[in-house]
């Protein structure tokens, strides 16, 4: 999922990276060693890397790709079209998309302040953005539940306003927003930093107002980064488990997320059924990221 969209970035990076060494190599053609350059360790490092990758990632994921088909195509379909499974998949995907969409303006705000503003304590704020990255998910889940429970610091005033957060789908979305926020900030930040200010200054000289500059100059330039951040935040939120299950309440059909369905099926020793949900999650996220990736490409020529 994230890999699908990161492939787009890394392959571009790989193209850019590939050029210099080859130029250096061409100057010394001939011997076998110089075909790959003067450095040793190609065989060893590639061997270790491939063994490491295959044993820990490729073979296990292969099991996930193959096991669901033990049910047969119709069995697989039956296993996935159970109302409870569909409801959970819907919550994981729509919840993640909603959470990322709501987080997007806040992520942009934080990136903007971190890049364009200078004030004491900025570095501390900068470090705080990574908190959801570093905080173990179970801790985040517990913390959010304590905070937004009907008797919590934020839950109590919200409950007085008639808004129930904990143990509802809203709580699920809140937890997803929490884990997704740093992805958006950290994707937008470097692009914003490299954005030439001349364009904004030129627009200002031509009489554009600040909202006009933001809307016509800054946002179009940031659109691909915003979309990429949205994609990564969604990818993370779709699979999120630890931060969500404590606050979700886990009511089947209402606030049960797809990863929890996998756990439940495993506890009933329904391996193929669990793998089916896992495969569906991977396939759906792949399609989602493919769509977002195409959208980014559509945007880029502007």
């Amino acid at each position, binding site marked *: 999922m994230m890999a699908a969209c990161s492939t787009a970035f890394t392959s571009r990076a*790989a193209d850019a990276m590939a050029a210099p060494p080859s130029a250096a190599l061409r100057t010394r053609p001939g011997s076998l060693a110089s075909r790959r350059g003067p450095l*040793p360790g190609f065989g060893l490092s590639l061997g270790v890397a491939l063994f490491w990758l295959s044993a820990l990632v490729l*073979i296990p994921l292969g099991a996930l790709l193959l096991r669901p088909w033990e049910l047969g195509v119709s069995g697989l379909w039956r296993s996935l079209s159970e109302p409870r499974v569909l409801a959970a998949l819907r919550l994981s995907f729509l919840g993640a998309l909603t959470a990322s969409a709501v987080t997007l303006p806040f992520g942009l705000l934080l990136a903007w302040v971190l890049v364009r503003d200078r004030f004491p304590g900025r570095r501390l704020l900068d*470090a705080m953005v990574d908190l959801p990255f570093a905080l*173990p998910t179970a801790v985040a889940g517990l913390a959010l539940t304590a905070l937004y429970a009907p008797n919590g610091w934020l839950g109590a005033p919200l409950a007085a306003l008639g808004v129930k957060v904990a143990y509802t789908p809203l709580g699920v979305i809140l937890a997803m927003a929490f884990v997704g926020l740093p992805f958006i900030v950290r994707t937008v930040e470097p692009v914003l930093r490299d954005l030439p200010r001349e364009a904004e200054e030129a627009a200002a000289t031509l009489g554009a107002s600040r909202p006009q500059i933001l809307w016509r100059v800054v946002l179009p330039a940031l659109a691909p980064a915003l979309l990429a951040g949205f994609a990564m935040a969604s990818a993370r939120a779709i699979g999120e*488990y630890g931060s969500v299950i404590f606050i979700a309440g886990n009511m089947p059909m209402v606030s049960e997320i797809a990863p929890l369905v996998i756990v439940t099926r*495993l506890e009933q020793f329904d391996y193929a059924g669990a793998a089916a949900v896992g495969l569906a999650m991977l396939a759906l996220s792949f399609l989602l990221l493919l769509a977002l990736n195409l959208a980014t490409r559509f945007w880029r020529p502007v």
Partner: protein
Amino acid sequence: MHGGRSSLAGTLLLRGLAVLVLVLFLGLPLLAVLAEALRRGAGPALAALADPDALASIRLTLLVAAITVPVNTVGGLAAAWCITRFRFPGRALLLALIELPFSVSPVISGLVWVLLFGSAGWFGPWLEERGLQIVFALPGLVLATLFVTFPFVARTLIPLMQEQGATAEEAAATLGASGWQSFFRVTLPQIRWALLSGVLLCNARAMGEFGAVSVVSGHIRGETNTMPLHIEILYNEYQFVGAFAVAALLALLALVTLAAKMVLERRGGGA
């Protein structure tokens, strides 16, 4: 620039909003963990940490991290070396595959090992005949954690090593250094801060992982419960002070990691 006062007001407004978002949305949960842990004073919180099951979970967490972090560090170094120092077909694919575990749900990262080694897994019967246990035991916890923390070291090193290029190592090779000499004397000093930063992040995730290990653990108290799993058990048994005390300990680990990362980034010049 122009319109000084309104632009200053705008800057202050945005700054205030950003601080508000960070404090309310990200900072307050951290504070809530501490407050809940200390609800009945420091005594009960410390007692919960000294509980034998809690101590066993801390030991297990440290053991799992002590196995997984070195494995993923060596793998990450090897991958970074071959990807940034050589050109070969499939290089971009290798790069993309290394990042794959980041985009897989933690629960799926645990599930894949059950599909392989669980009692109804591909190798389950074979293991059972020989009395070997992987799932619901330490090896399963290690494998699930390895999968989840797989990309950290590699993805911290690759951009930096790419940027640095191979000129220093090529010079060392020309001067007659062996591969290992050049690695330990030239490469390692160049990448040490980034390597340390990657190892720290890998370690933080290894110690804090919940979803993946939850699937393969079997939740046997005092035996296969890591700290995050112990938190869940205590919480479900309404032992809130204990749950939040262990959670606070893990939160402390996160804070130390973030602080160390900040220092390392300053030293390594943003690496």
